[in-house]
């Protein structure tokens, strides 16, 4: 297995595990306990921003180890996954409008749900494209 395939599988599996074991349970607990307030937002900022920054720096550092063709595949997969994510979020938002109507309302729980599922979908598409590209190359 080449390192690009390894990267795609690692990200897909870790994202899946993180989504199922951390995001969903945490989200359910928060929704169930109706956690809210400014201090709650601050907790997310305090923990979320450094985590995001560390992950970004980690990815940027790892990107340097790939050669130009691998970086091109990674960038193409990223662009396509972003496009899918935006389409999904647009579809979700517009579908809600058409299904419920302009005067209707939806529980706010749908907003983070839309965001988290969109993120997961984006990551899954990203990994899937890299794996498809690697498999295609292996066949050739």
């Amino acid at each position, binding site marked *: 297995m*080449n*390192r*690009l395939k390894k990267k795609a599988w690692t990200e897909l599996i870790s994202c899946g595990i993180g989504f199922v074991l951390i995001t969903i349970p945490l989200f359910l607990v928060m929704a169930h306990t109706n956690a809210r307030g400014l201090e709650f937002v601050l907790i997310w900022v305090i923990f979320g921003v450094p985590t995001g920054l560390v992950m970004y720096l980690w990815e940027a550092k790892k990107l340097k180890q790939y*050669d*130009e*063709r*691998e970086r091109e595949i990674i960038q193409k997969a990223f662009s396509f996954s972003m496009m899918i994510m935006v389409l999904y979020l647009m579809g979700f938002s517009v579908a809600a409008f058409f299904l419920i109507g302009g005067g209707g309302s939806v529980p706010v729980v749908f907003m983070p749900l839309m965001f988290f599922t969109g993120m997961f979908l984006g990551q899954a598409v990203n990994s899937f494209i890299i794996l498809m590209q690697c498999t295609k*190359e292996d066949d*050739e």
Partner: protein
Amino acid sequence: MSKDQLTNNIRRLRFDAGEMTQQQLADKVGVTRQTIIATEQGRYAPSLPLAIKIARAFGKQVEEVFQLES
């Protein structure tokens, strides 16, 4: 408008250079073997720096390794 296609003599040059393997060439120019395979088969057009590195690995000019066919 015709589509330009980049062709190359990497395979022949590897054999002329004492049957150099794809891995040896990859190590020499600092890329993966998959990149050399894709370049050799014409599925990937390398950047100018990589094209120069490949040409230098064989002691050739870039034009002697890569050709642009219209």
